[in-house]
């Protein structure tokens, strides 16, 4: 069975890159444009792993992660934070919000896949 990845990113460029990378690696990919949509999509998507950006309109990555972790059904899903932020403070916040791991943009396709493999069975 294909693993299902939910990606949440407001940038069309990054969404497309994620889509191409993940599809090529044999993942099923579902996409959302911001945290609010991410939580909506999550309800029916049942992903194996979530990859999310931090800076997004409406609901940012921190809020989105907190939302997922508060959700009784989906709180155990591994969440990888995909962001250009390289300073420790933001990663720390993401971690406190409940992120499982992180990937620094611009992402290297193999590293992205590795990180996903790492947090999923």
């Amino acid at each position, binding site marked *: 069975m294909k693993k299902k990845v939910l990606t949440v990113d407001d940038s*069309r*460029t*990054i969404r497309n890159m994620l889509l191409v990378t993940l599809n090529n690696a044999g993942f099923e990919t*579902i996409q959302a444009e911001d945290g609010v949509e991410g939580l909506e999509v999550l309800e*029916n*998507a049942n992903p194996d792993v979530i990859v999310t950006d931090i800076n997004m309109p409406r609901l940012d990555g921190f809020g989105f992660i907190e939302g997922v972790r508060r959700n009784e059904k989906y709180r155990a899903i591994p969440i990888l934070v995909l962001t250009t932020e390289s300073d420790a403070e933001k990663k720390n916040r993401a971690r406190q919000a409940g992120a499982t791991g992180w990937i620094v943009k611009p992402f290297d396709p193999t590293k992205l896949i590795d990180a996903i493999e790492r947090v999923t069975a």
Partner: protein
Amino acid sequence: MDMNEIKEIFFQECEEQLAELESGLLKLNDGDRDPETVNAVFRAVHSIKGGAGAFGLDDLVSFAHVFETTLDCVRSNKLEPTQDVLKVMLKSADVLADLTNAARDGGSVDEARSRTLIRELEALAHGEVPTAAEAPAPKPAPKAAAPAPVIEKPPVNDEGFQPIPFSFGDFDEEPAAHYVPTVQVDFKPKKDLYAKGNEAVLLLRDVSRLGEMSVYCDMDSLPPLDKMDPEEAYFSWKISVTTDRGEDGVRSVFEFAEWDCDLDIRTIEEDVVGEVTDDEELPMQPVPFDLSMLDESGSAAGGEDEPAVVESDAAAAVAAAETATKVSQAAGRAAENAKAAASAASAAQASQTAAGQTIRVDLDRVDRLINLVGELVINQAMLSQSVVENDTNGTSSINMGLEELQQLTREIQDSVMAIRAQPVKPVFQRMARTVREIADITGKSVRLITEGENTEVDKTVIDKLAEPLTHMIRNAVDHGLEMPEKREALGKNPEGTVRLTAKHRSGRIVIELADDGAGINREKVRQKAIDNDLIAADANLSDEEIDNLIFHAGFSTADKVSDLSGRGVGMDVVKRSIQALGGRISISSKPGQGSVFTMSLPLTLAVLDGMVVTVAGQTLVVPLTAIVETLQPEAPAIHSFGASQRLISIRNSFCPLVDVGRILNFRATQANPIEGVALLVESEGGGQRALMVDAIQGQRQVVIKSLEANYTHVPGIAAATILGDGRVALILDVDAVVAASRGQSLKQDISLAATG
């Protein structure tokens, strides 16, 4: 989709982000302190940086990075976005746009400028941020001749917060053939580790992939089942792994988890391993670690590398251990699985909605469609005409069908035109930049106010609008506005205002550019015109006529030629490019209060609704938008005025009568008004005129065929069209004809025609 397509998308997105950035900064400049505005601005730069990084656009990345760092200071309230700060930021936005364009189209940017701005931005970020908590941005060295790409590097001192150095196969360390260290790991997860989606069994799997591993599970703290909290972490592991990747390799496995567990990693000697595991840790039970359940395909190496020693009585413990660690997930997932089937369908639906409500279409395709629809309209008109000519009773079903066809064609055409309609916002935003640049060069303080940015007009019009508008804005700031000191002395706000407005008016778009500067210096203009032999020294000109002199070729009233003038482009060129768009430009100026330029342009350059008329045997089309009413003049209503002028009295007011045939030189003598039809038109310059034509043939939608593109500009004629019977008809430029009827402009237009 390949990378090139994604890159294309990236640049499209950049444009949107840049627009967002600029409008956000302008909002901040106007005193907006909404955190969401700041966020939006930050996100725009952030997104550009993120995408640029993915495509290795290093110049763009390094500039965006510095910009972003400074914006982050604003976002975290460490830097007050004062006017001065925003000035730097707006300039930075311009440079970012330049860099984006350079990355897309090649070409170069003003490096000195971007270097200066990088320095200014850094000064803002550093100088005004006293706390060192803000991780100082890795400084992208100003790029001079050194082509070495400067990419941000993840800070090294981030408490080990290294971005995924983890990779299973690609380590290129010294092949340690002779010595492979054994690493001992004490790993005790906390509850949080599971809560964040990490999983002990996965971590152990990853460790096992590093090399020969043995693992012992400490289950002492596991309470009886009835007292067990399914979300608590009760187990700890002692792992020893022999790997040539050493301590660091093992540590990297725990990268995501190290805050949420007690972790001790150390390298030990071969013989010590035995000691530790066998002797010291008496309560520990060796736990066989079977990872095959994790590898669905069974192809992964994990299973094979496991320690072979398995104590049979430990089997039960294994099951217990795995159950416990998986409890939290199992609980959550049980519910999901039930819904799994239903969710697949709705997920697809959801992602479809996510795709958004717009599609991006190649402009060529739309243009092609428009051309085809244009041909369709002509064809439909020809068909109708030939049916009408051949069908005498006029009630046949063919006729009814044709009427429907006409309606459908019309609707198709409107829909297609709507596709091309775009708000003028992008052009207006570009003007903001122009204003900034000129204000900088001239040392004037200028505020640009834009209104009606969402007014839509055909894309072609928008594209062609930018150039004349830029020039007019330059003029308004350079020539129109006074220097701040002078303004202050005059009791004006030292900051000049330029107002750019767009609105729809009777089927056209009207763009107004108003400044609150000195207004036209009529004495100076007049003198200059005399000096340049444009007018006779004793010419008696009205204020309006003097103002209009600035549209003459080669006219410049600036005392000295500044950086901005001397480009060889004058208002005459502006006027001509507006005319080429089927538009009209006029000026009204009040000394000391400023000037207003008003441009009126058609909404589309493709079709227009026209009244088909006959003048001296010629078929002409008069744009319907210009016509107020038509009337049949009666002899008593016609009054002579002066030598050749005539007026018509309509409902107790007089209106000049304009003989179209005479103005266009279709005939040598004036026609008899009583034999013709008068079209009451409203022209841009204001005021009504009655255009005399011989007869009205009908009302029709016509497809505009440019005369300039195929022939040359003809004064008084806006364009041509093909009628239903295949004949070519000229479309009347009502404003030009009205202006010509006033006399003065006529000479100008005719001389223009003679030289053109």
